[in-house]
């Protein structure tokens, strides 16, 4: 067995383009697994992937090392295309985020959707909160919506790109209430917050952890939360639904995919790993520390989610005036 492994390893080292080895029942990876992420070191996906890799190693769920590889560029499409090129490769997985789903909807250059890859597991849903400056006149979500109705287009929200969740939330709220306010894109989170704290915009959608810091500093107030159930850190803030706005909760989603065309045994293996992984105490603590929601779904469910999410997004983006290309 050991000799066979050695020969196999030597063979792989010698000829990189060697196709996947024949897979037997109860397959296990025998050489380091490449974990592809689309952000640079320190980016959201990179941080999560490295954290998950080290937790999996600590829990000894995989016998080999998980090596994070940064394939940046193209808003995630470079990483997705890289995975698609590795068709049938059993030693590679990737971490996707919502941008892998929305980017192909708006950019013709991005050709690979999650449908072209093998879905393995959905891991995380990131909640968010709706915040205003602490001296703003709005005490509740209703105050804000009513003010926006009275003077359409004068209130402003700072956020990310037009396809980001920030704008999606705005579109949904505007559609369901008939209120209208402006949406101003800023590339960096710091600029969005500065715009709010400087009083140049009136509202923003923000990560709970970051909002927490500014609430402690006394500079922000939270009106509602975008989550499926109330966050531990904001027990007294209503969900959008509880505040009277029953719009779909748009999740910021993260999970795992594999290259297309991998044998069923390999998919089963990876699904098994993550199924076990999400039940570990380490992972649960990590979710709590980062104020994430547990979003676990297996590959088949994730695929269904991908379809409904894409259809939903494409409609919302069309409403927002974005050209949808597929």
């Amino acid at each position, binding site marked *: 067995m050991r000799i066979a492994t050695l020969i196999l390893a030597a063979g792989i080292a010698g000829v990189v383009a060697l196709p996947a080895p024949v897979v037997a029942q109860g397959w296990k990876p025998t050489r380091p697994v490449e974990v592809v992420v689309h952000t640079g070191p320190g980016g959201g996906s990179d941080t999560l992937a490295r954290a998950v890799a080290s937790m999996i190693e600590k829990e000894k769920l995989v016998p080999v090392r998980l090596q994070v*590889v940064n394939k940046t560029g*193209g808003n995630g499409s470079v990483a997705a295309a890289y995975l698609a090129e590795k068709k049938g490769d059993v030693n590679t997985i990737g971490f996707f985020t919502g941008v892998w789903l929305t980017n192909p909807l708006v950019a013709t250059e991005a050709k690979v959707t999650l449908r072209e890859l093998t879905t393995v597991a959905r891991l995380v849903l990131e909640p968010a909160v709706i915040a205003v400056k602490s001296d703003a006149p709005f005490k509740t979500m209703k105050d804000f919506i009513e003010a926006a109705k009275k003077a359409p287009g004068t209130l402003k929200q700072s956020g990310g790109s037009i396809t980001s969740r920030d704008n999606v939330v705005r579109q949904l709220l505007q559609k369901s209430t008939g209120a209208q306010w402006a*949406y*101003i894109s800023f590339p960096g989170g710091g600029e969005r917050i*500065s715009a709010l704290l*400087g009083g*140049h915009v009136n509202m923003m959608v923000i990560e709970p952890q970051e909002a927490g810091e500014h609430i402690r500093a006394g500079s922000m107030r939270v009106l509602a939360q975008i989550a499926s159930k109330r966050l531990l850190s904001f027990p007294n803030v209503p969900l959008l639904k509880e505040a009277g706005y029953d719009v779909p909760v748009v999740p910021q989603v993260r999970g795992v995919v594999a290259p297309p065309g991998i044998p069923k045994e390999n998919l089963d293996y990876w699904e098994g790993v993550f199924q076990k992984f999400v039940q570990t105490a380490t992972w649960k603590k990590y979710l709590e520390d980062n104020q994430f929601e547990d979003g676990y779904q297996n590959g088949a469910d994730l695929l269904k989610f991908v379809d409904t999410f894409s259809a939903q997004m494409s409609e919302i983006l069309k409403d927002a005036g*974005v050209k949808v290309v597929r």
Partner: protein
Amino acid sequence: MDIITGLWNGFAVALAPINLWWCFVGVFLGTIVGIMPGLGPPATIAMLLPLTFQMAPASAMIMLSGIYYGAKYGGSTTSILLNVPGESASVVTCLDGYQMARKGRAGAALGIAAIASFIAGTVGVLGLMLVAPPLAKFALSFSSPEYFALMVLGLAMVVLLAGRSMIKALLAMLVGLWIATMGTDLFSSTSRFTFGNMEMLDGIDFVVVAIGIFALGEVFCNMETRESAQVLPVPKGLRNLLPTMQDLKDCRFAFINGSVVGFITGVLPGAGSTIASFISYGIEKAVSKRRELFGTGVIEGVAAPEGANNSETGGALVPLLTLGIPGSGTTAILLAALVLWGFKPGPLLIQEHPDLFWGLVASMYIGNVMLLVLNLPLVPVFAQLLRLPVHILYPLIFGISIVGVYTVSSSLFDLSMLMAFGLLGYLMRKLDYPAAPMVLGLVLGDAMERALRQSLMMSQGDLTILVARPISAVMLVIAVLVLLVPVFGSLNRLRLQAIESED
């Protein structure tokens, strides 16, 4: 945070052994690249930036800044010994420094350069420490119109001081704007100038452009001839490095002049350290009782510009750390670094990351002391570097450039872009197009388009928002005046004089 507690915590960060080590590495490398002609701080920082990903951001910032101000110490050595500026900011030092060396006073010139650099460098950090925190608070009231006006002012200054031909500087800047708009538009998700490449959906990495234009372009130019710049013998008798009491007395005013002028010039967007050293030399000459001796080897003619270009570092970090706006090629790369490490440059940076800001400030006090030690007694050792053969050095720079770009994205596409920008950088040098406006056009242009569109979204399409707010109105007026300078004959002569001395 109160300055005393801030500085106290800052020293706690900077005195951590690991940070002391990186500070030393930074100033040491800085001295080396300062001494080597044709290898400047922007190229070095751009090449090393990707390698800092594995370091703690505060350590990385301490090291990269160390290269930035360390190079200004090293640059004077080459100016004095070879009459060739080791880096662009030391040009003016050639005038009197080389003459002093020819008269056998190389030791005093090198000594006073290090001392002036130390004094003014320290004053610059002091200024940074005192000015940045309140300015950041004030800048919180800046909204998109003010940022737009600031970018316009910055680009106007860059163009004004960039090169002999203003048309070419403007054209270089416009090419920068073009590159800045490549990729997915933030506001509408439209793909612009991607040529159907998915790699270009999020634009061209700034590091690729910076390394291509600064490092590769420069080296291609240097490789045109087989001969390396002629290395003159390093004059002996460097034992007597300490200037005499009379020298110090002659330089009293130069120390103050260099410190103040350097800092103020640094804070202004677009002016940069070369301009700072020129202005301070000009002032020194104007007020001197022995005006006619300037250019024949007077010691204050070395102290003033060397002081100014070091004090400028502290000044240049002010807009970078308070507004997130770079004023020069080097600070543009430091801005890219901050973003890559996950910081959000802007008025909240100091408040949210006091460790980074105060750690950097404290490390700069320490770094200046290290540099004084490195550049006073050890200058003869560093001077030997001028003998390293170029046929070893240049291939190494190519290698580091390739590695630097590859580490950012592991992408062969980015390497092919690097080749394209290397060629562009070379052609720009050959055809006399200045590089700085292009790189700043790339950095500021992106932010400028955003600020303009944000402003007009806020005002629902009303252009008067740009002039109705007092701060932005004032800055726009200054920007227009700046661009009108070449129209007025006498002022234009001054401008040309400033640029002439750079060549």
